[in-house]
């Protein structure tokens, strides 16, 4: 099971990213452990400069803006 983290504070794009990942995972029937990281120091610890960012199994795969569905499907497959 993939461990997916969405890094981002309370902005609309960050919330939408979480929802989108949830919906793609459900659609593909993939079980994932999804977590939202809101703590600023933790976010900065990943070295990202733009939120929302997505971390899959400890690796930053995306930063800045809502990712597209195809990309999400690729990460969680």
């Amino acid at each position, binding site marked *: 099971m993939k461990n997916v983290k969405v890094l981002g504070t309370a902005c609309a794009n*960050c919330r939408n990213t979480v929802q989108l990942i949830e919906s793609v995972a459900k659609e593909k029937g993939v079980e994932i452990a999804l977590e939202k990281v809101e703590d600023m120091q933790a976010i900065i610890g990943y*070295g990202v400069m*733009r*939120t929302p960012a997505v971390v899959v199994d400890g690796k930053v795969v*995306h930063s*800045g803006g809502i990712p597209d569905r195809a990309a999400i499907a*690729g990460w969680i497959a």
Partner: protein
Amino acid sequence: MNTITTTTTTPPTLWKWLVGLILAIPVWVFAYWHLDEFAQRLVDLLGLSRETHFGEAMHFFFFDTPKVLLLLTGIVFVMGVVQTFFAPERTRALLSGKRLGVGNVMAASLGIVTPFCSCSAVPLFIGFLSAGVPLGITFSFLISAPMVNEVALVLLFGMFGWKVAALYLGLGLLIAIVAGLVIGQLKMEHHLEDWVQAMVRTDSVDVPDAHMPWTERFQAGWAHVHEIVGKVWPYILAGIALGAGIHGYVPQDFMASIMGRSAWWSVPAAVLLGVPMYSNAAGIIPIVEALIGKGAALGTVLAFMMAVIALSAPEMIILRKVLKPRLIATFVGVVASGIMLVGYVFNVVI
């Protein structure tokens, strides 16, 4: 920036983009030069006459709506493509280790073309400082990025002409440069939160977007249009409708007595009023349109607009995580003074 591993950049996609753009540009230009005819036709079609208040208001609406939407779509697309060349990581690498002065000018200019969202302000701030970008230069960027943006410029150009848009651009840059210089000169590094000061300096000079194929750049441009225009069009319609109403009905000089240039206290009042308010450029335009339409002085209204966009209570709360109160107060004080000065200059000059 998307790091999709499965991108197949086949030539046909690029060809499709190029053919599409070659077809779209003449259509855009043709439409832009025939706006007046289009508005006139629609007014005639509705059986209205421009001699009446209502007809005149409708003509204004039919003329300004497609004009602003065309301009916005064009500029936002171009900016979306341009921004792919200026990822924050790249801007950071360009600014790292620069001296005050040149660095501030560069930072303020890069603020226009680097993609920025206020919710990313803190990670960006930390990212800059940790890569050795001086504090004053980081502030020049942080002030310019939200204030001097393409939506504000397009709307000012569309509604008040290129002179107002150019003045806004020039003065916005000037405020960002001077405010950053002042904050840099004050040497306030020890007013950063302790954990920020304790951070180790990281020399990351990765420039990820250097080899992005053009298809992805065009896609990014289109995504930018989708995101920006998709979000702001209701505000723009509301603003133009309001403007049209004022154009047709409300007598001029309605606001002149309280926000006209003769009232010296109107500029500081506009700034004080603007700071706690939080809105983006598109949200504030209906108000700007209404105020100007009713005879408020341009400098006063622009000061209000700048205060709303550049200084906002939610942003202060976010920045409080990395800045101690005195540095926040200095930031607000310096920027607010700059905006007031701009307001007065505008009122005197125009």
